[in-house]
């Protein structure tokens, strides 16, 4: 998913009002965010508080996978959290089950949707829940609405350490917690795996040697209990770069400021959240989160092909449009265009410009 430079809010009137107030106070609105000179920034906690139906801390108790009840048979994940702390809104009980697009068909095939998180039993998270059962990713700004907890410290959905809180936003450091990059799926049951056409072909290729009962017995003994999927696996290599100026010309290499590496404690993040909730205007309290039932048939969101937008008239280069391109500049441009815009003009003794 490319970076969103605008984030439509939920339609609940109170949330929209509160988010609108936050947008007035903080420069993360869509109009500003589309200007590269005022780059988009992650949503504020105030935005998350306003948009969330509920904010809870919990541990993943179970993860179930189901296919949508339609022609596309899209894998979805039903993740059930045991709620340990409710900061905003309320749930039906101690458990809440959320539905996300993506997951496995239980036969060795997977769908991952960029920007939608994956879950393993035992994951501990702070969740900003929004639109469960109606949204394909029922968190505020999808994965941005999930904060991971590991050894009582807090990380983002990609395992990057949360290191501070500035201008209403969580700040991230360089540290990536490798354990949070792994997702474990249950290995397919043998009989389900046999329904995978690719596996069926392998079995057929074994010919008479394929004793299904023997294969089942060996599979039970030898197959891994889980399928581990690593979502980061950063590849790192050293670079050796330099720029040396001619005599009298100095060069200064610029690198990003090293960021803090240590993730902040869970208690600290909780205090920041509670403070934002306290600041939220009266009447903008979160609402009730209703669990979804994994055993109730559901349909996947449709994504039908649509006709493209109108092609906007091309705006040509301003100088050419205004007609203030000099004859020398025109010759320069034409020379460059003839050589596929290579800026090194070989046969030209003109010196347009300065």
């Amino acid at each position, binding site marked *: 998913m490319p970076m969103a430079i605008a984030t439509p809010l939920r339609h609940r009137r109170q949330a929209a009002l509160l988010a609108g107030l936050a947008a007035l106070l903080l420069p993360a609105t869509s109009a500003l965010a589309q200007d590269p000179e005022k780059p988009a920034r992650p949503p504020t906690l105030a935005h998350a508080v306003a948009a969330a139906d509920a904010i809870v801390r919990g541990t993943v108790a179970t993860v179930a996978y189901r296919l949508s009840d339609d022609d596309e048979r899209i894998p979805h994940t039903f993740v059930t959290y045991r709620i340990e702390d409710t900061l905003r809104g309320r749930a039906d009980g101690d458990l809440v089950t959320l539905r996300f697009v993506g997951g496995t068909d239980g036969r060795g095939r997977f*769908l991952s949707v960029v920007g939608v998180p994956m879950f393993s039993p035992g994951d501990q998270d702070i969740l900003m829940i929004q639109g469960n059962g109606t949204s394909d990713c029922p968190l505020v700004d999808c994965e941005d609405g999930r904060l991971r907890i590991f050894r009582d410290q807090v990380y983002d959905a990609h395992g990057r350490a949360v290191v501070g809180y500035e201008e209403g936003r969580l700040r991230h450091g360089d540290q990536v917690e490798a354990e949070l990059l792994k997702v474990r799926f249950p290995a397919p049951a043998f009989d389900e795996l046999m329904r995978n056409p690719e596996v069926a072909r392998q079995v057929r290729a074994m010919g008479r040697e394929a004793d299904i009962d023997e294969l089942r017995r060996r599979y039970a003994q030898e197959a891994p209990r889980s*399928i581990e999927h690593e979502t980061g696996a950063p590849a790192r290599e050293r670079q050796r770069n330099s*720029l040396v100026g001619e005599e009298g010309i100095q060069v200064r290499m610029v690198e990003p400021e090293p960021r803090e590496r240590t993730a902040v404690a869970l208690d600290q993040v909780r205090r920041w959240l509670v403070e934002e909730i306290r600041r939220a205007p009266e009447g903008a309290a979160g609402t009730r989160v209703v669990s979804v039932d994994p055993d109730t048939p559901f349909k996947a969101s449709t994504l039908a092909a649509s006709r493209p937008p109108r092609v906007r008239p091309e705006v040509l280069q301003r100088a050419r449009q205004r007609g203030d391109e000099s004859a020398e500049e025109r010759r320069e441009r034409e020379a460059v265009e003839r050589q596929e815009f290579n800026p090194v003009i070989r046969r030209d003794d003109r010196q347009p410009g300065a």
Partner: protein
Amino acid sequence: MIRIALKFACVLSAGLFAGQVAAYSTKTCLGERLKWGSNSKQLRASTTSFPAGTWRNTLQGTIDRFNLNPSRFTYSLGTTGSVRRGNGTSEVWGSTDTGLLAGAPARAFQYWTCYWFFGNHVSLDEVDVVFDYRSPWQWASSEAKGNVTGYGGGTDGRPMRSTGLHEIGHGLILNHENRWYNIMGTDFTHLHANGGMARAYFGADGSAAAVFLYGARSPARRDLGVVHWRYDGTSGEYSRHRKTRLFNTSGAVLASFDDAGETRFRVNRGQQVRAEFTYENMGSQAQNNVPVGFYISSNDLVTTADRRIGGGSLSISAGGHFTAEVTLTIPANLDANRNYWLGVIVDENDAIAEVVEWNNATYLPIRTN
């Protein structure tokens, strides 16, 4: 403003050496890397969403741009009358349906296989890319600057090619990346500009990732580039990019104003300034001692026909990228109260045969006091 700039510009050395690490990341299952089983993949464009004409050509242009990368991997483009997730075919379409697209300009759906059956079976099977064809997204098909956000295209000229390159980067199973200037961060501020064009490109980091996954093409492709964009921190999982700047010798950013979407810096004639640019090697081999020239131009097209005011020598690893400030003197005999462009050209003697030459020059707009 000055304090912020200095905070971010951690100066390592004066004209010598910097070490960095490549930043791309990918995915594995059962310890095996998720990647295509061959070095080519056809994407099929929906004939509804990409009918013959401008939008189809834009998508084809995106793929052509990607295929300039130095790896052995290439995409091709076909068409299809019907699209569907999970049908075993990788497709591209646009949709006005709500569903999952809410809040994102496009989404990639990655289907893969991973199981153990007396051995690991891991493969990448299908990647579908869906563009959001609803408001607020306003796609720019043209790369002429007047159509592109940040260059006079207002706030609604998001280049389809830059988002398309980002998405087909997900087609390589590259993850979002927020540690460096790169296409898998904020794609619509990952552009090259010279003259009237602001072009999307896959970049050094993406190219290095493609080589990591699929190996380098033979003979090796060479491609150096320089841009007036820089890394400016993180925005969640995305890198955030901003235009490069012009400083005085004390490190203060010079006064500037918006000139039809671009930032124009005010300079004094004869003034020493520090010009900031980002240099990239999008080839598969290191390049050493490459001549770099700095120029003053009367227009936004920087070429060797312009006035040279200094130079240097660039050495950069394959897949390397870095931002540097160079001290230069604005000529004292420029006209007062006039617009100029302070330019840079890498490989200024054109000695390196590159797969792309148009990305070898860029500029910072200036106005003399």
